[in-house]
């Protein structure tokens, strides 16, 4: 059986690469889109050798919104599955004092991935099939002092994915929202993360693969996060505003 490729946006991220590898292992060809794809040449060679699937690289900047449809037009095949790992944690203190920095975080976590997946959704809809995977974050479930610029953008992205899912349900198109919790990646390098709450990129890749196969809607990679977030969401605001989280 020849499979339609999986398109990965932000493919240089550890989570994206682990996800790509999991799909390649199952025999899916890959379309990897990232900034400066020359960094991905070794991974391309490795994946092709190990799994015998075709891997193509595409250079793009997600913030250049106009380029999205051009990139999609240039693909030899419209993918069967598209995954966005695009994101930027940024520095909260800097975001508070520098609107330019804040806007960059907002655009990278919300505007860019939402518009890109929205464009793909239209093409999937025209075809009548496809799966969209958006990697958002539990940080979007409630704004906290330590990362609310990032969190608010992720909240927007999560809501967007939920709307997309609602719009496309019954049209053969599936939308998966991934809320990974803490993951041990380049984004979190050097942070002191609690071990039990932290997933490895590999784990996230496998969980995404399984969730796509099972057509799940929302994926918390480590189940404990569902509980943690239920608690955090339900703390009354008068109490919450005084907490240091």
């Amino acid at each position, binding site marked *: 059986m020849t499979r339609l490729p999986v398109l990965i946006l932000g493919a240089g991220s550890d989570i994206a690469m682990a996800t790509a590898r999991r799909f390649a292992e199952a025999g899916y060809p890959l379309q990897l889109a990232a900034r400066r794809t020359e960094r991905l040449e*070794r991974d391309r*060679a*490795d994946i092709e*050798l*190990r799994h015998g699937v075709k891997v193509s690289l595409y250079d793009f900047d997600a913030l250049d919104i106009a380029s999205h449809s051009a990139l999609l037009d240039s693909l030899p095949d419209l993918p069967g599955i598209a995954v966005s790992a695009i994101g930027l944690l940024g520095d909260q203190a800097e975001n508070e004092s520098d609107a330019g920095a804040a806007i960059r975080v907002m655009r990278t976590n919300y505007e860019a991935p939402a518009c890109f997946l929205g464009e793909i959704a239209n093409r999937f809809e025209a075809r009548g099939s496809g799966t969209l995977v958006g990697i958002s974050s539990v940080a979007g479930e409630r704004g906290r002092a330590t990362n609310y610029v990032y969190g608010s953008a992720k909240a927007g992205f999560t809501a967007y994915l939920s709307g997309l899912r609602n719009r496309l349900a019954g049209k053969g198109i599936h939308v998966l929202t991934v809320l990974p919790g803490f993951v041990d990646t380049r984004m979190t390098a050097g942070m002191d993360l609690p071990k039990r709450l932290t997933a490895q990129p590999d784990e996230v890749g496998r969980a995404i693969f399984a969730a796509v196969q099972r057509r799940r809607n929302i994926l918390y990679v480590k189940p404990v996060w569902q509980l943690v977030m239920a608690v955090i969401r339900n703390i009354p605001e008068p109490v919450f505003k005084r907490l240091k989280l």
Partner: protein
Amino acid sequence: MMLSGWGRFPRQSCAVSDPRDIDELAQVLQAGSAIARGNGRSYGDSALNPVNTIDMRRFGRMVSFDPMTGQIVAEAGVLLADIIDTFLPRGWFPSVTPGTRFVTVGGMIASDVHGKNHHLHGAFGAFLDWIEVMAPDGRITRCSRTEKPELFHWTVGGMGLTGPIVCAAFRLRRVETGWIRQTNLPTRNLEETLAAFETHHSSTYSVAWIDCLTGGDTLGRSLISLGEHAAASDLAWDKRKQPFDTPAKRLLSMPVSAPAFVLNRHTVRAFNDIYYRRGAARPVEELSDWKSFFYPLDSILNWNRLYGRRGFIQFQCVLPPAASAAGLAALLERITHSGLGSFLAVLKRLGDAGTGISFPMPGYTLALDFPVSPGALDLLTELDRIALDHEGRFYLAKDSRMTPSTLRRSDKRAEDFRAMRQAMGLSSAFTSSQSERLLL
């Protein structure tokens, strides 16, 4: 973090980093005298450095493969297990493999590992075409037998002490199936064992499990296994269509350390006895799948925990052919006398010596392991002495307790190695707990 080799002795608190590319690796080298670490399957302290241990496993990508020559180019952190998973289904197998496939390419080069075919084909280094090594200043040097041959010579078998290997090219061998035609030969004593090795010198693979708890007439009784890669025509016709499909092995795991009483002289003696009897009753000829033949221990993850919390120590020496019979008899007598049975005792014929301070040389190699105890440490000191008396030398990948003078008496090359490190400005840039202990 607390770190050890596979023997879980010694354990040391080590600062560990895991750089993801050449630039980060170069950066990490600036933090002070460093040692590269692969998958931690060497037994002792060769991949430990309290101030700067560099986990190389992120260098985990295969770069290319040439089906004409069987040459694979791979980064140093690639696991042998992944290479087999990728290439066996296409008809290729490692030219040399140690007794576990959970080792990295870098670790195999640094220990110049030998397999059951050493007597005919040599060690891993014999199949290496080139390697890339990082110098203390972060620059990468490619070396081979013809290009920077001195660096190549000392890096193969050099236990990481010439700098981190980042990439290597080496050759796989063609195979028709994932099966081995195995021949089992029980022998009744040491004389018969050595005679069998010599008689079957042309077998591709040969190794013996040796019972080191029986003395007297049966001293050195063994189960020898010989092997050849099976051709497709050796398989039953229903297997011929999928010659690389072998039964999936369930991975067992030792979740916790065994209490100390699990391995004592009585249980080890009973095990050895049962093992010998069962082995002697096996059919002479059988087909084994590649995992059972090459990697019997790999099906029990963390089997090293069997030895309890204190860990275990390995002893592995090689004796030259002329001294082998007398030397092995003396070693076995000493072990039998001590009553400290070794659970896993392996005897193997080795062939030509490799480069640098690589371990193998023509003769017989004996590998043993013992749970750590004062008695075992004393016994190993005596075994060192017996090996020295018989012109033997020792395998650094297994060592955790030898003294610098034992090393120097066993191996004239140790001083040359140290001098080379000094001359090339490597002594202060690359050190392991083992190199400090052995004054390398």
